């Protein structure tokens, strides 16, 4: 079994009551890691409506209580939200966030910037959580952390390039090949961005359309990294999806292990 890195895991409890995220406990994910051959994973709190200050701290403690195979990402938000679709709820949400910020009632900090170094990276969900401000990006850059961002229908690669990549000095992992859930146009935008910007990589999580994955693999094979999106599915199933498209064993190893090991400076795990 090839040792894998899984860069996209939701660990802990969401308070949204939505079906998307089941409560994935660390112990269950560790069992799923063993089943799939995942040797390292990067996890963040699932979507919350009350901010991530407590969720980030809880996740950090939970990862430190484990055996070190799971590293936490700090989940951060902000007062700037993309309005990339003509949907009333998106406009309402973005407007409320901006007006709140102008009135001095902006989003409460999701983390103290001087604690960022305890995390392995940062997770963003721009259309629901917003994008952090310049001061937070300076802290992210100072800590040298990679950023993983949701991307697709409501958070397009174009928005991400303009409002996230432009303020980041390190690696940007664009989740879902930039195309969640089934957006061909955004897939092509993300691939184009990865082709011209060496700091950008695309993760495979949440992609269940073979044509999307095979297109990305054909266009930017060196820039694709494995993510499972667990608990939406298991890492074993998510990796089977990758294997169903990628035949070349060297490329499988690049996607499943080597690129993530390179990004996170962990090159010694290939047994």
């Amino acid at each position, binding site marked *: 079994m090839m040792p894998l890195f899984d860069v996209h895991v939701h660990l802990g409890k969401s308070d949204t009551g939505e079906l*998307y*995220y089941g409560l994935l406990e660390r112990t*269950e994910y560790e069992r*799923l890691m063993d089943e799939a051959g995942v040797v390292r994973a990067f996890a963040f709190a699932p979507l919350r409506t009350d901010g991530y200050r407590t969720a980030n701290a809880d996740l950090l403690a939970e990862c430190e209580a484990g055996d070190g195979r799971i590293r936490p990402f700090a989940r951060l938000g902000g007062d700037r939200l993309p309005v990339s679709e003509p949907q009333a709820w998106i406009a309402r949400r973005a407007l409320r966030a901006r007006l709140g910020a102008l009135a001095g009632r902006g989003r409460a900090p999701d983390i103290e910037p001087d604690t960022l170094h305890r995390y392995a990276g940062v997770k963003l969900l721009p259309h629901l959580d917003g994008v952090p401000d310049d001061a937070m990006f300076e802290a992210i850059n100072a800590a040298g952390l990679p950023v993983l961002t949701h991307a697709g229908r409501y958070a397009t690669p174009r928005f991400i390039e303009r409002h996230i990549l432009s303020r980041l000095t390190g690696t940007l992992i664009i989740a879902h090949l930039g195309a969640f859930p089934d957006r061909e146009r955004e897939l092509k935008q993300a691939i184009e961005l990865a082709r011209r910007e060496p700091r950008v990589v695309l993760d495979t999580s949440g992609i269940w359309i073979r044509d999307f994955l095979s297109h990305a693999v054909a266009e930017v094979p060196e820039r694709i990294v494995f993510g499972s999106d667990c608990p939406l599915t298991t890492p074993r199933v998510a990796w089977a999806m990758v294997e*169903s498209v990628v035949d070349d064993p060297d490329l499988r190893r690049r996607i499943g292990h080597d690129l993530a090991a390179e990004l996170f400076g962990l090159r010694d795990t290939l047994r």
Partner: protein
Amino acid sequence: MSATTLANGTPDDALFRRTPVPAGLDVIDVHLNALGSGIEPAPGFYAAETLAAMQADPGGTGDGADDDAPRFVGGIAAPPAGVELLHASMALQDDLLGTPGWQCWLRLDDEGGQRPPSGPLAQAALRLGADGLLSRVSRRGGTGTGTGAGAGTGTGAVAAAIDADPELLARFAGVKLMPQHSGLPGRTTLAHLARHGTPVLVHAGIQCPVSWLERHLLPHLSGPVVLAHLGSWPCSADDLHRAVELASRDARVHLETSGANIGNFLRHAVDRVPERILFGSNRPMCAPRVQFAHVAASVADDATLAAIAHGNAARLFGISVDDAREPCR
């Protein structure tokens, strides 16, 4: 049910199956898209696959199945988008004639029939139950949302063939509809489907909301209705809830698993209407072996998994799993 009890008697709160999938489980895939003999694929971004290739590699991953792996013993295939659908459906039917475990959908094009709401205004009207009013207004204004009841006047080749010879329906497992692309069949065609009790596989989700199908399609049918993607394509929790609720009170309604790649979506449906869930992969969009692995991981109970894998489909479509296990002829 997905909830189980551990050996020590405590409830198992795990999201995913702890035990191996039963060895050699038979699987019938009710949602395949295949090219029959002599049918050329349409150019485009999405790959097409021949029926022969699917039967040669039924799991779709290229690796040989060992004794313990699920066995993909049969399926129901429809022509993919972009081909001439009547010709392509007939080609599949010819190819599959007499092949145990395999059937095909007559894919029904019907340009000009009712279409589901598109755009934020029409979708908001649907949520408010005012889509009929919007349709009447928009038809006068010429915006063509096509959401109103009774708007269908079919002009497609398949509909015309059914209208000319309704016995054509008996040669197929049922019809497949993609109303978001080609609209619903006209009234005459729907009447033939109702008279024959023809099963219908229909795309359902954001582009083709379950509430719209309930209002504009189901009243015109008498046979089984299979909502593809658990009714939730690509990941609409609202439509999933409506689809499960609809299945729980309408015995005709079944839910097919392709594209429903959120474990909790599956668990929600399986916990409530386990006897109505049918396995589908939407191949070639996803390999059946991968799609089934996802379903199996999310269903803890072996008997329920077997029902989803083949039992419910065998009952609904009269497929003999014993016969289907024989190699393709």
